[in-house]
């Protein structure tokens, strides 16, 4: 039940699927109410989420800010809701802060319930096939990412 799958779809998308042992209206709330989002959408290693504002309506904006435990590093993104179909579907756009040319991805999240268990499917659409392909090949599938890390390791030794 807790296995996350991650696979390519078409040339610009990545699909993340994960099942949760809860009815879908609760899962939908956990994805859309800021006081709940704030409790799970954190980073790893103690990163906190001091800012989480969500104006949950079509055309409404969201703002998410994370801080590292020592407060030295931060990460932030802005979002805008495109479609809301409670409790089945959310479409939103996301832009991370600090990218010189803003790279906007569109995320379609669907919530399907079977026997009290909700499968969340997130389709992440990247602006270009190149960005998507690199995401898949390198980090997410542990292929090239590791070979590049090895490559970096080799060079550092020489």
């Amino acid at each position: 039940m807790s296995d996350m799958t991650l696979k390519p779809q078409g040339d610009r998308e990545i699909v993340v699927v994960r099942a949760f042992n809860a009815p879908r209206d609760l899962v939908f709330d956990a994805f859309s109410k800021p006081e709940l989002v704030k409790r799970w959408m954190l980073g790893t290693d103690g990163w906190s989420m001091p800012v989480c504002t969500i104006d949950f309506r079509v055309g409404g904006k969201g703002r998410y800010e994370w801080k590292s435990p020592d407060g030295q590093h931060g990460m932030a993104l802005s979002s805008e809701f495109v479609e809301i179909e409670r409790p089945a579907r959310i479409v939103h756009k996301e832009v991370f802060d600090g990218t010189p040319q803003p790279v906007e991805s569109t995320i379609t999240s669907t919530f399907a319930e079977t026997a009290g268990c909700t499968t969340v499917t997130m389709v992440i659409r990247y602006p270009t096939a190149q960005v998507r392909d690199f995401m898949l090949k390198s980090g997410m599938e542990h292929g090239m990412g590791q070979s590049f890390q090895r490559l970096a390791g080799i060079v550092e030794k020489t």
Partner: protein
Amino acid sequence: MNLDRTFAALADPTRRAILARLSLGEASVNELAEPFAMSQPAISKHIKVLELAGLVSRGRDAQRRPCRLETQPLADANTWLEHHRAVFEARFERLDGLLEELKAERAKRKPTPKGARK
């Protein structure tokens, strides 16, 4: 850190092959062009892209201007990607816990009609 530029530069197989070659040591544009069925200007174009992404730097030697691999952007990109996947997994595990809490709260508020019906 300019990840877009790094990803775009790495998306091309020729450019990845150039980086793999440079991981063995610095090389001139001519030396880099040799193993590829490509003109020197075509290779130069790829090197320019890698340079702009900070993945390759050029030496001062006016004649050869050897290319060398810069590893920092690769390390940054890799760290970012690994982090991304780990973040997804950790978040979903935390969400599992939160959903259990929400279910328990709901059960407390409304005694289950299932039990009443039986």
